């Protein structure tokens, strides 16, 4: 990468310029300038924290103001009732919000999409009522704090908070943890299937995105010397933060800073000169942004090669990579790898799986066939933990896994693909594979392992490509590569050859044949294209209306009249 050096110099110069501006504001600016800068920085910090949970982890929140208010109230109570110095109180506010987020995170983050957004908004509404009834903290009439005498001190506190929030965003944009968070955004279930501890990732992100509003709230409370529930938990604070961040570029490192600075400086001029048009202009800006450049100002700059996102954990050149060390030694082919006993799944009135039992030995490839709606995918979902079986038992390497969550089964060595590839479509080929490598058996050296997998599968040429640019066939290969990067013992392939050309099918068949190179010792696949899978299978299992109707060698199964009847209907 020849540009790297020049880019680093660019970043350094930008950083120095910011630092100079930041220091010169309290040194040379009027008190108004300091106040304006403090307010802008408060929104920068709020924008960066919203960006963590909503931009990186994809959980749009309308209620981060809950943490702003909690931080503000913590500061007010500590200063007023315990005579704590304000800067200590502000830090305590950050700690309190972190604790609250740690408690509420696991609950709230079970909600998804607009429901999470509304749930957070509800949290803010509930807190407004709680604090308006709590006379110790000032009640509905609010509370005053001792007057703040040095605006520059608050400004510095705010600048440091914004800087820390920025740093955490920068870390997210470059680190494996940030990649985990983005995988939650792109497809949470698929991320779980790759061993990403999604709940932990979400909760940690949520806590980080709560700390900074807590600090900002405390600083603002001290800055204003007055606090009441209506302004502490004001939902429009979130709305403004969201507008600024969207305008700058959601999920980017520079978006919140650029969006907030530009809009607030413009907004302040509008407020002063055209206040009556301000709302409409804000609205128009948001609409235009979404319709014309949904990635915000940053995406616009990207077109000119500026502020481009760096691929996470990507080395300058794709390394040769090392073949993994075998982990599964000492078992011979007589050992049972997977055993399914009397498995039934019922959806309401529909019995999707009816007492299915089978066994897979080490080294075997089992294919499962059946008409549409025969229960093939349900069987997969039940074995890999995506669906809770109604009854029955699943044993992996002799011990029961029936009650384990998806992620634990992945860590034990079971991995799956999805019928429709569920790739992290906003990210690159490299990031998709390295994400899996980070959570598989080679997690101590994910970069080397991911590189080896990409080379072995044959995707090394296009490792920097965005997923969206791959052909459907290549996407299927990438999905296989991603599963293999986990280095599992047992792989479940869900119709990996559906809708492919002969050529593409041949490439996939090649990968399936070489699976033992990746340490795989058992394959279960669901397939419609029977011809493409028959010669790869040791055994074939046929499902019909949720029941197993055959289970033996492919040649025998395909000549079984019962099977033929199930597939082709009654033959006269």
């Amino acid at each position, binding site marked *: 990468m020849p540009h790297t050096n020049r880019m680093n110099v660019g970043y350094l110069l930008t950083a120095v310029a910011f630092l100079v501006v930041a220091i010169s504001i309290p040194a040379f600016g009027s008190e108004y300038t300091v106040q304006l800068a403090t307010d802008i920085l408060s929104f920068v910090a709020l924008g960066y924290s919203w960006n963590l949970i909503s931009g990186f982890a994809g959980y*749009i929140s309308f209620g981060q103001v809950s943490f702003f208010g909690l931080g503000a109230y913590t500061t007010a109570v500590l200063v007023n009732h315990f005579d704590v110095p304000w800067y200590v109180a502000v830090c305590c506010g950050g700690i309190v919000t972190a604790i609250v987020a740690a408690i509420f995170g696991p609950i709230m983050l079970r909600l998804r999409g607009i429901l999470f957004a509304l749930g957070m*908004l*509800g949290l803010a509404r509930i807190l407004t*009522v709680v604090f308006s009834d709590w006379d110790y903290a000032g009640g509905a009439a609010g509370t005053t704090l001792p007057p703040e005498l040095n605006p520059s001190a608050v400004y510095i506190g705010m600048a440091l908070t914004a800087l820390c929030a920025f740093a955490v965003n920068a870390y997210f944009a470059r680190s494996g943890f940030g990649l985990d968070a983005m995988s939650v955004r792109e497809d949470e279930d698929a991320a779980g299937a790759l061993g990403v501890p999604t709940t932990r990732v979400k909760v940690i992100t949520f806590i980080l995105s709560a700390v900074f509003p807590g600090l900002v709230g405390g600083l603002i409370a001290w800055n204003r010397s007055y606090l009441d529930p209506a302004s502490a938990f004001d939902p429009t604070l979130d709305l403004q933060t969201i507008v600024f961040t969207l305008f700058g570029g959601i999920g980017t490192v520079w978006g919140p800073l650029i969006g907030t600075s530009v809009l607030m400086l413009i907004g302040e001029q509008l407020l002063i000169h055209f206040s009556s048009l301000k709302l409409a202009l804000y*609205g128009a800006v*948001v*609409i235009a942004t979404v*319709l014309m450049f949904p990635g915000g100002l940053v995406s616009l700059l990207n077109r000119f090669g500026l502020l481009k996102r760096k691929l996470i954990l990507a080395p300058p050149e794709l390394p040769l990579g090392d073949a993994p060390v075998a982990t599964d030694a000492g078992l011979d082919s007589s050992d049972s790898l997977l055993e399914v006993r009397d498995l039934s799944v019922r959806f309401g009135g529909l019995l999707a799986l009816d007492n299915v039992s089978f066994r897979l030995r080490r080294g075997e490839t089992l294919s499962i066939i059946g008409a549409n709606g025969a229960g093939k995918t349900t069987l997969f979902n039940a074995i890999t933990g995506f669906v809770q079986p109604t009854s029955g038992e699943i044993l992996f390497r002799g011990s029961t896994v029936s009650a384990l969550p998806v992620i634990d089964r992945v860590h034990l060595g079971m991995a799956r693909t999805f019928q429709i590839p569920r790739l992290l479509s906003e990210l690159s080929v490299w990031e998709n594979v390295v994400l899996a490598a980070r959570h598989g058996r080679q997690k101590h050296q994910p970069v080397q392992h991911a590189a080896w997998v990409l080379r072995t599968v044959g995707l090394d040429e296009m490792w920097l490509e965005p997923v969206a640019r791959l052909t459907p066939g290549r996407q299927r290969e990438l999905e296989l590569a991603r599963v293999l990067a986990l280095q599992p013992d047992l792989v479940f392939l869900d119709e990996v050859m559906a809708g492919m050309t002969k050529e593409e099918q041949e490439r996939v068949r090649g990968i399936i044949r070489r699976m033992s190179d990746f340490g795989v010792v058992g394959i279960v696949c669901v397939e419609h294209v029977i011809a493409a899978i028959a010669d790869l299978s040791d055994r074939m299992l046929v499902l019909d209306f949720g029941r197993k109707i055959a289970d033996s060698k492919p040649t025998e199964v395909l000549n079984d009249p019962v099977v033929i009847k199930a597939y082709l209907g009654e033959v006269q």
Partner: protein
Amino acid sequence: MLAVQLLINGILLGGTYVLIAQSLNLIFGVMRVVNLAHGSFIVMAGLFTFWLSARTGLSPLIVLPIVFVVSFVVGALLQPVLIEPLMNQGRRAELLSLMVTFGLDYVLVQIALHVWGADYVSLPYLQSTWTFGAITLSKALVVVGLFAVGIVALLYFGLNYTSFGKALLAASQSPVGAACCGINVRRVRLFAFALGIALASSAGTLLIMILPMAAESADNLTILAFVIVALGGLGEYAGVTIAAFLLGLAQSLAGYFLGGDAANVLPFVILIAVMLLWPQGLRRAA
């Protein structure tokens, strides 16, 4: 008697929620467009009705069809510009529609402020009661509830028993599949959005009789609508109607026994609780 009156109050309150929620259900639940400007359409229609009624002396029930037609046209003009371009964005469409309508909300509020000012207004219409012993029924509330339920019933039959309604449901479930069957998916989406806006606006015309509204009081209606749709289940017609009435009932009881603030936060408490226990909404829980 108190119990009966509380029950009636709850049902009447629920009646005011039905149309607010079902119009959003069409846009959000069925078409998967997150319309954050929902409340603003309701309030604009309310303010328009007030303005027209005050000028001409027309009954709001006569203004209703005018509002319906005008807002349908407005919805039909907005959809191709703001919503349709997002529809090919796959899973991001929901987030993008949220953002676009978020901006639209600001614009609508500003327009309302400019045209009608920031005042809270309400129409004095049908302000009398029917009394049955100790039970009192507000005529305005009953009429609003009946109209709302009537419109929602028409919507139900329209969706389930006309070919266009079936096309709409099909397009929402599988756009590609519907297109393959020869359905003009773009036109269906346009119609659904315009209809949703027209229904929301109708709600505004009815609600201005019982609820003071101002240009900037729209957000709460938006939130309420989303909460009810979430509780009832996205796109679930019966579920949303039941959720609207149950919420009205619950708020009425909470307001009486626990005070106004309890009724205020109740939708959120219920939302969080229900979503944790039954992530698919109330109907799936039953």
